[in-house]
């Protein structure tokens, strides 16, 4: 009670460093421009004006993995593509997060065969799984918001990620 009245006058707010850092990390998370298949089209639809992603600070997709925080694996991962994804993930700098968008990225989806990696979590660790074939743009936005709440819970103790993945 005392501190708010004082702070209101002087325009000073106190918080913890963790909250500040996590607030900064969530509000301008830049995704890597990475669309593989059909889910990429729904991702593009989510970036369009109807389901605007730029309200989350995501209107620019960075083409270079070194400038991106978030990789949204949108689409099916084939065996030929898996080493490429791993290389891109390794090039991203910390902190980085992964959303597996769609059924194919989560678990192989409709394609249970020789050519498709059964879930991108066999290649890179995943933070949020968004189900759907393809997930609606609203489902993707829900996944992004869940990721934001996950990032807000992150601790600054040296471990960069809260491990347990979220299934949307």
């Amino acid at each position, binding site marked *: 009670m005392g501190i708010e009245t004082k702070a209101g006058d002087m325009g000073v707010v106190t918080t913890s460093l963790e909250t500040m850092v996590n607030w900064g990390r969530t509000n301008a998370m830049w995704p890597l*421009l990475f669309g593989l*298949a059909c889910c990429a*089209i729904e991702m593009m639809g989510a970036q369009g004006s*109807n389901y605007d992603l730029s309200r989350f600070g995501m209107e620019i997709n960075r083409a270079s993995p070194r400038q991106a925080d978030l990789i949204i694996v949108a689409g*099916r991962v084939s065996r030929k*593509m898996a080493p490429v994804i791993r290389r891109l993930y390794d090039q991203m700098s910390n902190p980085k997060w992964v959303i597996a968008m769609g059924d194919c990225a989560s678990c192989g989806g409709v394609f249970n*065969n020789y*050519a498709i990696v059964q879930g991108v979590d066999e290649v890179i660790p995943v933070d949020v799984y968004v189900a759907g*074939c*393809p997930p609606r743009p609203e489902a993707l936005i829900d996944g992004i918001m869940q990721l934001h709440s996950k990032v807000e819970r992150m601790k600054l103790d040296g471990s960069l990620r809260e491990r347990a993945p979220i299934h949307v």
Partner: protein
Amino acid sequence: MTFIDHSLSVPSPHSITDPALAGKTNTMVLNMGPHHPSTHGVLRLVVELDGETVVNVAPDVGFLHTGIEKNMEFKTYQQAVVMTDRTDYLAPLSNNLSYVLAVEKLMGVEIPERPTVARVLLVELQRISSHLVWLSSHALDLAAMSVFLYGFREREQILDIFEMVSGARMMTSYFRVGGLAYDLPSDFLPTVKALLDIMPSRIDEYESLLTNNIIWQERTMGVGAIDSAAAIQYGLTGPGLRATGVAWDLRKDMPYCGYETYDFNVPIAKNGDIYDRYLVRMAEMRESVSIARQAWQRLTDMGPGVFQTSNRKVAPPPKSEITHSMESLIHHFKLWTEGFKPPRGDALAAIESPRGELATYIVSDGGPKPYRVHMRAPSFINLQSLPHMAKGQLMADLVALIASLDPVLGEVDR
């Protein structure tokens, strides 16, 4: 025997990288992709450059190979419709139609008029939505981002219509063997009418942004030209072929689904460059609106009716009949446990998809699952004309070229 010069043949990546690694040093070999802002999916290009000029380019595909054709051999004919949605993911209804027509030819099933007209209407709406994505991503690649936002605005309306009929925005699987999956909902016709009424003015809007835009013209006119003889050699079909002057459109020349009864034109152009392909696709959008309007009129005049064939061995009976008809129950049971069995033989059905000639070749061994399904994917075949079009162009033109060919990697790799 007259053989075409093999130097015109489509290069493979190794035919460019191997000489370079062996020490041939006067050109530079650059790798573009599979992760690249402008390659429309996971397409890798091995580009041989002399400074900024492209000497040779070899597409390397396969990064999205899904084994769809083999996977379909393990599903019944009706279940396999779901797999066809995911090849050309910008026009799922077209893929459905090609597969379903092939199976219907195998079975010798006649589809009544109402579902046929509904199929035409939805496929033309699908063509418009696919061309909108082409336009949006083509403009985005050439840095005209507003067109992307405008194009997706109309596409959302079309996707709302698809969601209304089938429940899914993109992977609808709405066309089934025997007709449609469900009946058309009651507010389908008014919603389609509202869309078709505003669509021409929206196409005018896109044209006003790009057609007479000096930057657009400088980047696309005279770039990546191909003549009609080379186009036929490389198997180019669809808007790419029509832009070279060949007036071949399967809807007019080998009609299916009653297209011979609709009144529409086939736009063609002369030069075969990027600008002409753009003009052809814009004109095709207008023609699609016209065909859709005619189909809408027919559906309105026909009123409510059937949505699938009455051949119970192919299309399931309505649930209300099952409770009091033994025959219907048995048909339902056989369809759900085993599926229908076409006679032994093979069939091919070709349609005009937004990208070109999409043909499905099915071999049946008399069992409930297809023995072999092959999709002649237009994007895969059209990609072979890329090296021919790109020789002598600049690196930046390569980006515009890929966009104008409009490949969909799901179809290329299947």
